């Protein structure tokens, strides 16, 4: 059963045609990755799903319900959560306050405590730093915080925009291990990445985006073997 369905979506920035009719399907429990170069439209796709951008044409539906009619903050209540590009932690809020903001859509205290404990189990470092102001965290810790914050609303699907950006290789691995862990616990994941090799290693399926169009879609295994992908995104000749 596909939970997220994107059909023939056209999104514009002013007059710039950023997404030219893309189709993406995500099944429950999957990790799906969207790879592509700079300016291919990866972030635009995520911003369209999360409601920050509205497409001129096409449909986005979650569990069969059209979500384009909702504003960004309402879509969170439907079960979509996004970890934005460049982490976007609230630098002047503490770690704890950032996580509380992630749970803004949740009203039950027990649920918030449960989610908070889950985040602290995934990222013990965050627990150590919980009273610290987020702006003083290292890049890796901020990525942990952004990810944990994304989980605080207990989403059915988590959108992640370039979690590896600007992180040391060790931290990238840690973050990707955690993504797999989160997925095993039942959250469907849509992962946008420039680090195509890492992304294809943990993903079930992948889409390749080029200047606003999907040029390839296949299982991650097959994409890794695909000569076009190898040449353009994996740096192999």
């Amino acid at each position, binding site marked *: 059963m596909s939970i997220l369905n994107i059909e023939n979506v056209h999104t514009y920035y002013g007059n710039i045609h950023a997404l030219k009719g893309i189709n993406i399907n995500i099944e429950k429990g999957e990790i799906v990755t969207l790879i592509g170069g700079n300016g291919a439209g990866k972030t635009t796709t995520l911003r369209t799903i999360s*409601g*920050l951008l509205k497409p001129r044409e096409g449909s986005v539906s979650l569990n069969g319900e059209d979500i384009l009619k909702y504003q960004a*903050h309402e879509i*969170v209540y439907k079960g979509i959560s996004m970890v*934005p590009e460049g982490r976007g932690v*609230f630098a*002047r809020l503490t770690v704890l306050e950032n996580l*509380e*903001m*992630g749970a803004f859509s949740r009203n039950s205290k027990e649920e918030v405590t449960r989610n908070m404990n889950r985040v602290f189990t995934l990222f013990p470092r965050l627990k150590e730093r919980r009273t610290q102001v987020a702006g003083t965290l290292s890049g890796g810790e901020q990525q942990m915080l952004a990810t944990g914050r994304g989980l605080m609303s207990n989403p059915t699907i988590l959108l992640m925009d370039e979690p590896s950006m600007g992180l040391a290789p060790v931290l990238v691995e840690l973050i990707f291990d955690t993504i797999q862990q989160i997925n095993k616990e039942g959250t469907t994941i849509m992962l946008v990445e420039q680090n195509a090799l890492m992304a294809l290693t943990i993903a079930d399926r992948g889409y390749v985006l080029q200047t606003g169009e999907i040029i390839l879609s296949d299982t991650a295994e097959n994409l890794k073997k695909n000569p076009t992908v190898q040449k353009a995104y994996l740096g192999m000749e």
Partner: protein
Amino acid sequence: MRTSFGERLLDLAVNGFLWGFRILIVVIVVLGTFLTIRAGKYTSEQWIDFVVFGISQGSIYALIALGYTMVYGILRMINFAHGEIFMSGAFGGYFIATWLTGIGFMDKYPVFGLIISMMFGMLVSTLIALLVERIAYRPLRGAPRLVPLISAIGASFFLQYTFRGFFGPGVYAYPSMKALDGEWIFFGIGILKVQIVVTIAAVVMMSILYSIVMFTKIGKAMRAVSENKDVAALMGIDVNRIIVTTFALGAAMAGAAGVLYALTYRQVNFFTGFTPGIKAFTAAVLGGIGNIPGAMVGGLVLGIVESVGPALFLDSIGIPRPYQLKDAIAYIMLVMILLFRPSGILGERVSKKA
């Protein structure tokens, strides 16, 4: 070559002027202070009076300044109609206080009477601020920054002259509260009751606001929105609702300040909001605009300097009526802050986000 020489000359001239200005101010302050203290014209009791008046006045500025600073923090916009929102609170308080005095309630229960007047002033201010936000600002969200600023100035005039239209240009005398007449004596020093009550009320209001912003879910959401609206929306925060809440809270503080101001000066008219509005804006800039503790500190500093300054700096350097220059002192402080430390006392970095 020639232009670069000309430019360098201009640079030198501007820098020279700025330094000259700095030095002039420092000389006036130091020399004036020295001469005044040596002349011993004022008794220590008078100095204490100046400071106490400065504190009570400053805490009113601080209350108003909170509204400027919170709206700026969220929308990066100066709400120039805020002074008029303050004035509308003073009017609201006037009508209810007059009525309460008329039925004798005010004399019997002065504390409740005062609280009711303040609440009503806050209510009026809040309603008017919400209307202004809805009509004059929200349709301009996303327009270049100058546009809502002009709209705010328009709203300010609109409110002033609407009040003038309804209530005329005359001055309404606030009813006097018997409970607030006279002085209380602390350690042998008499302090006007009004000033103590005003200061306490302002401090209570500020503490309430500060607790809301720091500890409640909505307050944390306000801080999150002021940092990044898009990401806040991704958390499920309704950004528009938070903006409205911010206006409402700021206006409630201004309404309370309006009633307190009117208690101090015993009068209100349609123009009452202008000067305190600009002073409070100065206080917000002084403390660092966008910074809530900054607004409180800025208000107090401005109130005290304005009250102590004329006597301390200006009296003995031959200025005949120094107290007439207290507004000038406030505005010179604004100019100096803008020139020499635009980020204000508590230094919020304002230039980064647009």
